[in-house]
């Protein structure tokens, strides 16, 4: 089975040994399990049925897309989610990049502790961050609204930006900066002309991921939003309302698209290193 003679290296062959059939079956069943629900939500957005989830759908239509586009409550939820995500992304990228620049290529006492601190907001369940922020706002008598949501989102978005930049810096030898400085560049010039161009796609990927994460977040949001409604909160409130099922279905696939397409973009930007993902939400 192993046809490694041509390339010389066994790993570079196009066809490896064939997997035993039980493994293949289990693997494809697992992959199918991951994708069928998403495919079904997409299908239901086109269903002509108005209030139930009968399968198969009696017919297909584009009508609900038009109706969803005409709903002002959806648009204001989209606008709020977009604004929050933008704000959270900008602050998270700035803070995460600063942290990454400080911690990479340096060793000092307490470095691991600091690095762990940045990961904490996503390592602990969102409900802890949510209730903690809520308690702090209560104590400080801050009225929940746009700024409190953005604040909460920034907290867990920092790690995404941080991870992407750290991964890129790890592959950037410090000698490059030293060479620039030997040639007469100061810190700022070296950063601008050597480090920043190298970081470009990592920053963009981190920003895209942070935006996607924030746009889609619901757990922390419910505790920091007060009476404001982001798109995920709109969707959650919608689940108890059978009257609006078709509209809900349409918004569901739009949110699905908004949360997955950016990930493909980020993955494409960092495809040489595969450094995104894996770190969890």
């Amino acid at each position, binding site marked *: 089975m192993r046809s490694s003679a041509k390339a010389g290296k066994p790993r570079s062959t196009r066809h490896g040994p064939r997997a035993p059939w039980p493994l293949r079956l*289990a693997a494809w069943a697992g992959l199918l399990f991951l994708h069928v629900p998403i495919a079904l939500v997409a299908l239901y957005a086109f269903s002509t049925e108005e209030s139930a989830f009968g399968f198969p759908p009696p017919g297909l239509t584009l009508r609900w897309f038009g109706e969803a586009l005409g709903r002002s409550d959806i648009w204001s939820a989209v606008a709020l989610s977009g604004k929050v995500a933008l704000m959270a992304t900008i602050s998270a990228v700035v803070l995460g990049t600063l942290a990454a620049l400080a911690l990479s290529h340096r060793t000092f006492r307490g470095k691991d502790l600091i690095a762990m601190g940045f990961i904490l907001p996503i390592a602990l369940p969102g*409900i*802890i961050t949510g209730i903690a922020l809520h308690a702090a706002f209560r104590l400080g008598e801050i009225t929940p609204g746009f700024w409190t949501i953005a604040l909460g989102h920034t907290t867990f978005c920092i790690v995404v930006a941080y991870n992407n930049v750290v991964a890129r810096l790890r592959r950037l030898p410090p000698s490059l900066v030293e060479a620039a400085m030997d040639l007469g560049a100061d810190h700022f010039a070296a950063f601008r002309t050597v480090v920043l161009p190298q970081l470009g796609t990592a920053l963009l990927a981190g920003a895209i991921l942070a935006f996607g994460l924030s746009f889609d977040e619901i757990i922390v949001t419910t505790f920091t939003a007060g009476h404001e409604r982001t798109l995920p909160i709109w969707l959650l409130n919608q689940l108890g309302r059978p009257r609006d099922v078709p509209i809900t279905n349409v918004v569901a696939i739009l949110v699905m698209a908004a949360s*997955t397409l950016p990930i493909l973009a980020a993955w494409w930007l960092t495809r040489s290193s595969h450094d995104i993902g*894996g770190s969890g939400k």
Partner: protein
Amino acid sequence: MTTEDAQPAHQRGAAPRGALRRISTVLFRRRLLALWLLLTPPMLWLGVVYLGSLLAMLWQSAYSFDDFSMVVTPELTLANYRALFHGVNLDIIVRTVAMAAAVTVGSALIGFPVAYYIARYTRGAVKGVLYASVMLPMWASYIVKAYAWTVILAQGGVVYWVVNLLGLREVLDGVLALPVVGGSSLSTSNLGRFLVFTYVWLPFMILPIYAAIERVPESLLQASADLGARPWQTFRTVILPLTFPGVVAGSIFTFSLTLGDYIIPQLVGPPGYFIGTMVNTQQGSVGNLPMAAAFTVVPIVIIGGYLALARRLGAFDAL
């Protein structure tokens, strides 16, 4: 403290031009200052916003709540923590931890073959596509994924349609009649809730396992085969021990995420609170923020213990 003085000193008397140049020189001479300038903004954020909030929460978890007037007063008490060990609240904790454990085992069983297949038996473009096909569902909107399952499990929905098509209705009814697992319908049973949780967190299990399997060098497997081990023996004695830290790493996510979730228990499964839904209710409709905060300490303690255990099992090297 300054560990970077090993670098070449190259300030060859270049006359400082302009303010930026002068600042740069100062930063170069004082490495620690540069470090602090970079670290201060993110550390302030982490320290004030995040850790400060956690402390505010812990502080308020000791506030008193009057059940009759429904008013929170800043008198410190341990009553909230004592209440955690009362029958009903203990039930909530046990119910949540049991579900988190079941979901963790379930995702490991479903996830391992997927990760193993992608890591060992695919190459090049196929591997890239399959990897992306695990990553995409992970990042796809959480609330939409949860919603998808309320649609799938609904009466007359796709699961019932498939089951009827295959003539397995009696089997499904039999399963639903089982004590703990079952319920009056799929969407109000623990089985349904388990399926949704497993679905939502499965990619968080697959990716760390995948990374762990990828790191096992091919030469080890060849050595094992050369020494006469059959494929199953190689798997059990070489691959499984080496990739187990990956499973543990994945289990941190599935366990901790299930423990803190409060949306899925609202949407699918039998009545009865989870830790998350209890926190939400206490904070929201009851207005007992101190009790909600005390309840939040439970997952913190459990996850802290779990992380300590995971560290001993070597999971952090697999992340």
